């Protein structure tokens, strides 16, 4: 609560809405969104796609990570109104029909989660991270900026550090991703 609210703002907050077409996990959703609405809130409160999680709503935890055109983004920091005609993938869209994504299988095998709340973000982040590495993007721990980065444990830890896990499943997350990456 803000004690110094500017009183001239009373009534000035009439919502502004925009019509757009969202593409999520290859489904099309024609939708009218409030321009203040984040992708995270649109997914969770409007489309009943609750896989993406809200851990902080401020871009500080990674629980809300989804893929936009194949790149990982924090959906709590992304306004839905900017996503007309972009391809959004959430954790619900990672599996191929009934066949889980290899990362999903590896996470179960390695017990790479406990409460599971950070898990959708970890998974989407890992998918995006593997694509970044495959495209040759270096990280701060990459020894050779020119060659393709080798995803050893240090690289995985570094590249996955935007996704907090309070249950402390990091050791198993790194093992699970490593198995898929190598």
């Amino acid at each position, binding site marked *: 609560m*803000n004690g110094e609210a500017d009183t001239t703002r009373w009534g000035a*907050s009439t919502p502004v809405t925009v019509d757009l077409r969202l593409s999520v996990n290859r489904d099309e959703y024609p939708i009218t969104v409030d321009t203040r609405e984040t992708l995270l809130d649109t997914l969770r409160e409007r489309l009943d796609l609750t896989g993406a999680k809200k851990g902080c709503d*401020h871009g500080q935890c990674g629980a809300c990570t989804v893929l936009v055109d194949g790149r990982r983004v924090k959906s709590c920091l992304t306004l839905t109104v900017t996503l007309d005609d972009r391809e959004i993938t959430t954790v619900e869209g990672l599996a191929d029909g009934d066949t889980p994504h290899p990362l999903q299988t590896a996470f179960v095998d390695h017990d790479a989660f406990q409460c599971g709340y950070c898990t959708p973000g970890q998974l989407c982040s890992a998918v995006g991270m593997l694509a970044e590495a495959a495209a040759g993007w270096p990280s701060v721990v990459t020894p050779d900026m020119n060659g393709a980065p080798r995803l050893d444990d240090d690289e995985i830890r570094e590249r996955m550090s935007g996704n907090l896990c309070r249950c402390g499943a990091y050791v198993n997350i790194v093992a699970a991703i490593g198995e898929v990456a190598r």
Partner: protein
Amino acid sequence: MTTTTPSSVGSGLDRVEGLDKVTGRARYAFEYSPRDLAYAVPVQAVVARGEIHAVDVDAVLKCPGVIAAIWYGNAPRLASDDGGELAVLQSPRVAYRGQYIGVVVAETLHDAREAAGLVRVEYAAERHDVELRADHPGLYRPEVVNPDFPADVEQGDPDAALAAAPIVVDAVYSTPAEHNNPMEPHATVAAWDGDGLTLHDSNQGASAVRDTVAALFGMPPANVRVISPHVGGGFGSKGLPHPHVVLAALAAKQVGRPVKLAVTRQQMFAVTGYRTPTIQRVRLGADAGGRLTAIVHEAFEQSSTVKEFAEQTTVPTRMMYAAPARRTTHRLVRLDVPTPSWMRAPGETPGMFALESAMDELAIACGLDPVELRIRNEPETDPESGLPFSSRNLVACLREGARRFGWAGRDPAPGVRRRGRLLVGTGVAASTYPVYRRPSQAGARAEPDGRFTVRIAAADIGTGARTVLTQIAADALRAPVDRVRVEIGDSALPTASLAGGSMGTASWGTAVVRACEALLEELDRRGGDLPVGGVEAGADTTEEIRGQRRFARHAFGAQFAEVGVDVDTGETRVLRLLGVFAAGRIVNPKTARSQLVGGMTMGVSMALLEESVMDREFGDYLNHDLAQYHVAACADVRDIEALWVEEDDPHLNPMGSKGIGEIGIVGTAAAIANAVHHATGVRIRDLPIRLDKLVR
């Protein structure tokens, strides 16, 4: 129908809800959206102490989408109001900054958030006092410390023993306020249907939330249903209902519609509990051979003005080591601060940081290896009560840990090992956690298709409870796990104790075993004749637990850390961390290892990063988000391993298990601080181990 099946307990079964969690199908509290719902956004106090004179409700109601703005002046009265933490909107008094003093309900989350940010509140602010000091004039001795231990215990004459001791360690340690920060923020969806209330809520025990909320609203517990199938972590902070649960129910009642309320990450630092900061003085007296002659451990800690929460910080010191003279005390001061609560291994975690750091200092003072020092002070029976230990394998953990870690031949000299830019050192500390068990009920049902359903209002907050209860039930039913379905996380199921105090598996497992046994007997009696509707049996363990023999029941562990401290920046990295635990029979080695490693990971975080900073001027925890309150990230965690020694303890429960949810965090910070001393020669007695404390 049942054939002999290999024992499921002891196997590393994958989490039974694993696929639900990796596909996003598992739903957490806020992800339930009843029809016709509205959104509630709380309003927080911006003074740390004072009284609310007025709230401009009319102005708020003009904001788009707003349905109601509720505060003390127009809130429904609760049936029971003890003036405590849960007496939400029942008084104009403000007890701490960030306290919930109102709530705005609107059609959308955005409307509610926007309007809540514009609420104008008139306060009469008063001078506040938010600083814990060991010489605070308001310090007092609480009646008991959590849950029901005496505040002070004295044996022998510790002052005389200290005066006579040839070797004395006398040091003050401190731990900061720390916030649990489960990844899923607390959330409640409240829906009234006549006199009935349904809550989708994130908690560590649906039965307890039901009972608390029913009492507050003056209803029989049967009128309240709490549904919590998946919970995104708790670490103690969801063990007791916090004000938001009451606020959601009040708001839903007022507007006559279902209401969703999520505590924001920032709000969590004020309204969902935290570990009290502690100041601890430890004095150890020993003979030349390192045998303790006196232990004095005094703790100073805080609570709020609305609730006495007395952390049991020095309680583990009462049973940890042998000594003829001992004093352990607690002093509390009630400040204008948010109410502290449980955080993973409350009491043991801060208390053992101090005791195990002091033991390291004593080892150095005696010229003894710290592993050997601990072995020399092993008690034969519980030093406080004289009771036998049901099992105590601390020495085995120390020896096995030392062997695996490569401890032998360690040069004790501090500050002499350089590896590149790093000063390297190793440290050890002991861990312990008590073994509790509480009464619970359970039901077991043989279904007509040959499957079994087991029902209990247990909670799986990431512990693997659903999985281990499935294994326990399968063995008790002599059935394969894939024929057993365990239903938990709903207060409509048989009443169960909390997921807390590391007692979930012991408490619920006992009830599940007894219910399954009763079912098999019933099936026997029927001679295999199963009616179309199936057969059900139940159990209640109240009598069994009341009648259990008295023992000192505790789990133990030994933690070994290797750290590297950057010689220029003072940045500390934990290079290796090994925990060896003695915790009875391990029900599921896969989930158990995750629990123990998870606790140790939180211990790394506590040792190096976690610190809630009190803003004296405004009475607020200043760094109240995850950008400023640092918890360990992936790159902070390298080589962490948890192992256990075989422990066969017949005095525990049908599974022979001890709790493992908390012990992992207990000795970690001391092991790391001791390793930092070994690496650098600098003794850090106040957590966390920040760079500025190492760069001189």
